Each structure stands twice: as structure tokens, then as C-alpha cells.
């Protein structure tokens, strides 16, 4: 079973975080990440992105995330950001002095500054989105989405319960693989076998899903009554502070680019 390991890892992660931070409502974390992203998509310039990134890195220690954990979770972002930047440097809009040319690639002053700005922006938006969600408890997130954001309870709770099946499906996939070896078809035609295996997994997933739905229905899920909530989800002053901080990061980065004169509204 993989599930217990997942839980164990999850516990280790939350215990390393400061108790202040773990008590913050997942919805506030969502709000903060959203506020930062909203401000930063308005402009493409390196000053605003760099300011946001600097502020974010300054706030990071308060979350109490261990460095190893930070790198494990964010490495794809650190990999994707420079690659995105490089693409823009090579193929972005040309202006100013041209440094280098090859086939369709043309590196110019303009494309370099645009590339750097893009790279910083990807980091400034993606890092908080990942970091703010390290150790988020999915049950609390669902509680918040249903009670604060007011998404339909059936949808949110269905998704929450379904999430638990992912671990089981990983096990199923392994069994399917072993079973194919046992049936004598494990040597050749790997692509075709994978397609067949994926189809079997789909069938099994639907069965597991419908059994879970039966179990939920048997506990009066989906009745027309307005349900009550065993765990209240509310936004306290701490949660509001977190969201304001996110918004502040966004506003300060916009202000810095206006002051530096690099503001570059995307729609213009």
C-alpha cells in the first residue's frame, strides 16, 4: 500500500512548518497566491517581477519550510522558468542590437530583456503558488471551498473523496503490469500494451468510483437537505493578514515598475 507512506510524508511536512502557518486557512493561501498572480500578469517587465520575487523570498522563512522540502517541491519551477526565458531570448520580438542569429532564432537587446523579464515573472508567480500549498490539508481546503467560496458541496466533497482513490489506482496500475507479464504478453508491443493497460485502468477506476458513490449515497450524501458542517471553515484575522500580504506584494511590484518607468501593460 502506498497510501500510508503518503500520509506519513504529509505529516512530516506539516510538523516542520510553523504552527502559525499551518493554522492558516487554505483558502487564505489560495487568495494570497491569486492576488500575487493577478497583479503580475498585468505587466511584462523585469522590475515588477524582480521586486515580487525579492519580497516573496524575504517572506519565505516565516513559513518554516525546510530547505530540502522547498527544493524538492519547487525544482520543476526552477527548471521551467529559465527554459521559458531562453525560448523568448531566441524567438522573442526583435529590437535594438542583434547579437546572434541562427535559422529562426534571433537574439537581440529586446528579446534578451523580454526573456529575463519572463523568466523572473514565471518564478514570481509559480513559486508562491507551489510554496503556499506545501502541506495543505485537502479536507480543510474542501471545507473552505464549500463554506467560504461557496462552491457546490456535492462537487467539492465528491472530488475530495475521489482524491483518495488515486493511491488505490496507482496500486491497480502495478497489478495490471504484473498481470500482463504473467499472461505472457509482457515482452513486446510496449506501446500497444500500455494503451490496453490504460483502458483496463479506466474500467477499474469507474468501478471503484461507482462503489465509492454507493457508499457515499448510503450515508445520505446528495440528499436535497442543506447539509451541516462538522468542521467550520472561517477566515480569521490571521487569514486576512496572509491575503493582504499577498496583495501587498503584488501592489508593491506594480508600484516599483511604475516608479522605475518600466511598466509595460500587456494589453497595450
Amino acid at each position: 500500500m502506498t497510501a500510508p507512506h503518503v500520509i506519513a510524508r504529509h505529516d512530516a511536512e506539516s510538523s516542520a512548518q510553523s504552527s502559525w502557518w499551518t493554522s492558516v486557512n487554505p483558502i487564505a493561501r489560495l487568495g494570497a497566491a491569486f492576488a500575487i498572480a493577478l497583479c503580475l500578469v498585468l505587466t511584462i517587465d523585469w522590475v515588477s517581477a524582480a521586486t515580487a520575487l525579492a519580497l516573496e523570498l524575504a517572506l519565505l522563512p516565516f513559513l518554516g519550510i525546510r530547505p530540502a522540502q522547498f527544493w524538492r517541491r519547487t525544482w520543476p519551477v526552477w527548471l521551467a522558468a529559465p527554459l521559458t526565458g531562453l525560448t523568448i531570448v531566441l524567438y522573442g520580438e526583435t529590437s535594438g542590437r542583434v547579437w546572434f542569429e541562427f535559422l529562426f532564432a534571433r537574439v537581440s537587446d529586446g528579446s534578451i530583456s523580454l526573456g529575463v523579464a519572463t523568466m523572473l515573472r514565471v518564478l514570481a508567480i509559480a513559486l508562491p503558488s507551489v510554496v503556499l500549498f506545501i502541506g495543505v490539508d485537502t479536507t480543510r481546503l474542501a471545507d473552505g471551498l464549500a463554506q467560504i467560496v461557496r462552491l457546490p458541496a456535492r462537487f467539492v466533497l465528491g472530488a475530495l473523496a475521489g482524491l483518495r482513490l488515486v493511491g488505490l489506482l496507482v496500486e491497480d496500475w502495478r497489478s495490471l503490469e504484473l498481470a500482463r507479464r504473467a499472461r505472457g504478453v509482457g515482452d513486446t508491443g510496449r506501446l500497444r500494451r500500455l494503451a490496453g493497460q490504460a483502458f483496463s485502468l479506466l474500467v477499474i477506476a469507474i468501478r471503484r468510483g461507482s462503489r465509492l458513490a454507493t457508499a457515499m449515497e448510503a450515508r445520505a450524501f446528495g440528499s436535497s437537505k442543506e447539509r451541516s458542517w462538522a468542521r467550520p471553515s472561517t477566515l480569521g484575522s490571521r487569514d486576512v493578514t496572509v491575503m493582504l500580504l499577498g496583495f501587498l506584494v503584488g501592489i508593491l511590484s506594480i508600484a516599483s515598475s511604475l516608479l522605475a518607468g518600466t511598466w509595460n501593460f500587456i494589453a497595450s
Partner: protein
Amino acid sequence: MTATVRGARVVLRGFGWRHATRRAPALSSIDLVIEPGERVLLLGASGSGKSTLLQALAGLLGDDEGDAGGSLEVEGGTRGLVLQDPESQVILSRVGDDVAFGLENLAVPRQEIWPRVRAALDEVGLDVPLDRPTSALSGGQQQRLALAGVLAMRPALLLLDEPTANLDPEGVQEVRRAVGEVVAQHPVTLVVVEHRVELWHDLVDRVIVIAGGGVAIDAPAATVFTDHADQLCELGIWTPASSGLNGSQGAARPMGPGNAPRALGDHPPLLAADDLTVSRTPGAAVRGGIHAEVRAGRCLAITGPNGSGKSTTGLTLAGLLPPEDGLVQASEGLRQGASAQPHRWRSRELLTRVGVVFQDPEHQFLSTTVRAELEVGLKALRMPKSEADARVTELLKRLRLEHLAEANPFSLSGGEKRRLSVATMLATRPQVLVLDEPTFGQDAATWRELVSLLRELLDAGTAVVAITHDERFVAALADDVLHLDRNEGSLATAGAAIDDGSRARP
């Protein structure tokens, strides 16, 4: 539960049900009255419609799922249902939240929810913190959790659908005890569907048998097994007599003059595990210190509680998983030119050497018809068509699947799926057959068939390895027992391969 609820009264008049996807009705014209507080054991062979009836009683058969006929009324209070598979009825990731789930749906005010959750957990004897992850519970604990989730809702009608079918013996007893406590304290109406009659017949006062979509037997629990013994046996239903080891068909093979045990030398070793450590994924050892020997014509049973690494050990012996440490060695007679280590064999080389029947038959189905399913291995061996056809036809007949030759394997009943999954492995005539929980949730008829089939194979010299909780199965077939206990790496018990000598050899 603080408030006591009166049991529900159930009245069915000419009740029938046809699933939307089927032509024949699952249930037709059932007349039945269950009085408040009555405890009913609902029996029937697999595919008889008893689970459908239970779902109807639970109010889970909606109009869009099929056509109902007649009437079904449940008078008084909520109904609660516990299902067979512990994994698929855990809903949330923490114990307390999971029990609270039903109460929330019933719109119980928050301040009442948590006391009711604690009371329900108390009643089923699940003494764990409310924030314990549900995935960290054993199967028996998960079933008691499901029972608590239902109890918290204060049902007037408690419905249990094979609640112990997927559990190890320890879990079975836990759940049986919890249900016993609950019905002793509350006058709920209880309906249990179960194959294990001997487990429940002390607790119930009435036994109803469903066959052919209708009520075949309806009698008091005290007398039903003596008054209707022959009929029950005909319907393929376990009775306390056939469950015991003294029954005529479920018992060990008779020892007679011509049946003297053969010397071990007549059972050449095929596979040997020496100080084996097994793992599902490389690096994550499940258990170590395993010594075992698989011999031609002998049955090795691998037993032990859930989580002790039984299946992993079986799959490693079968060459599906590489050993984490130590060796699995195939004898000259088995390897026939292939590597000495089964996990290095090609998939095709496995076919004639080791066959594996998985716990969940659906995991090993590859085709859209039963016939094609049986041909898969033979095609991989590039067997001439005429010979392959002959083998398939013989297997279809032997395992009573002829009438289903063109059916989709996924559409078969539980017992049929099990027979097919065994047949797919027999097609290529492997020297060793490994079965993972072959008798899980099977009715008496399928069980008997399986045991007699495996006996034939053993007599013909096939080695059988069975990973099982089923004590009857062990008593009926096992020559050697490898018992793995929960204590990881315990060499003493893990290494002990005991010849229990219960099975006589020809």
C-alpha cells in the same frame, strides 16, 4: 448512541427489480415482512439477487438504474448500509471526519455531531484518535469504521452486505463482535448478507434464502440448517455442516489403502527461496528471512494477517517481482534452459513454468470475449490453431464456461470471473500455479469446484502455491504451510515451512 431508536418494519409486496442493462429481472415478485428488531440472515448463491435486494432495502436503487415492480416499504427511521470492500467505503482521510460525514449529510447540528461520532466509535470498539488517517487502519478496523459511520446516523434498519468477506480471520472476528455488541444494545432491525453462515447464525433469528430472483427458503435460524439441509446444499450455500471440516465435500481428501503418502523424493523441488527478502517496489522491503520450497504435486499455503507480505512473497516466488535480497532458484526441471532466477524469465517463458491467478480477476483480463481470453497465452506460445482450439474448448467445458464463450469477461459474475481467471492460467499448463486469495468472497459451489480442480492438478503433478486466509482451504489442500506473521523480519516463523500432513497423497 444516546437516543434509542426503534427498529424498522420492512414490507415487500410482489417486489421485483430489473437492472437497466439486463434483460432478465434480478428479483421478481418477492413477498416479505420483516418485523421491527428482527435479525435476518440473507443467503443465496452468487448472482441470486441477494445483493440487489439489500441495495433495494437501503434505498439505493434509483429509477434511472432499472425498473421496479410491486412495492417496498421501510417504516420508521434511517437505513444504514455497510458494504463488502473496506477500501471503497472509506470516504474521508481522517477517522473522525469519516464518521461525521453521514451526520453532516443529515444536517445534524455541529454541536451534536462530535459527541455522536465519539459514541459511535466507542460502540464499535475503535479506540483511535479522531485524526488518525483512515488509510492507516487495518481492514477489520476500516469495516468497523464504516459501521460506526452508519451507527452515528442512528439507523432503524441496519444492512450489512458481506461485511467480512475481504478480511483476515482477526478482522472477521473484530467485525462480528462489534455487530454483536450493537444489536445487543439497540433494537435495530438487522439484515446481513454473508457467505459465512457459521459466523452469523448465532446472532440471527431468521434465515431467508434467495434463489432464482425469489424467496426459496424463509425459516427460523434455529431449524433451517437441519430442515432444509439438502435444498441449501443444492443451491450452493454454505451451511454450518459444510463449513466444518467434517462435511463430505469440503473436507480433506480421504485416506485409503491406495492413498498412502508418497515419499518427498516423488515430489521433485521446482522452486526454492533462500533467505529471501521481498518488496513491491525496489528498496522498500516488505519482509525478510523467508525460506520456502515449492515441490511438484504439493500445495504450499502462504498464510498470515493482512500486511504481512503474503502476496508479495507469492509474486516474488512466481517471478513477477525481483527479490529485494536473497534468491529464488528454479530447479533444472522447471527452468528447462531458461535462467535459474524466475524474475529474469521473459514473460513468454513464464507461461509454461509458473501461472499466477491474481486476487482481483479483473486485473488479468485482456480480451473482449471469454474464448479470446483463454487464447491469449496460447497465441503468445505460437501454438498451432487446431491444438489451441482443442485446449480452449476443453477448458471451457471443464470450468463450465461454455455458455459464456462469447461473453465479455468483465460482465461475468464473481464466481465466473474467478473460474475464468484460473482457466486462463491453466491454458498453457504451467508446472507451478500460484493463486492469490482464490476463495475470497466465493460461494460454496465455486469453492468446492475450485478445491476439486486444484486437487486434480496436484494429483497430476502440478505444484500449487496458495496465498490465503481461508482455513478451510488450507485444511483441504495444503501439504506445507508458510506462515508469515505481522512482525517484520521475524526469521523464526517466516522460515518455518511446516509439513502439516493433513493431506494424503495418492
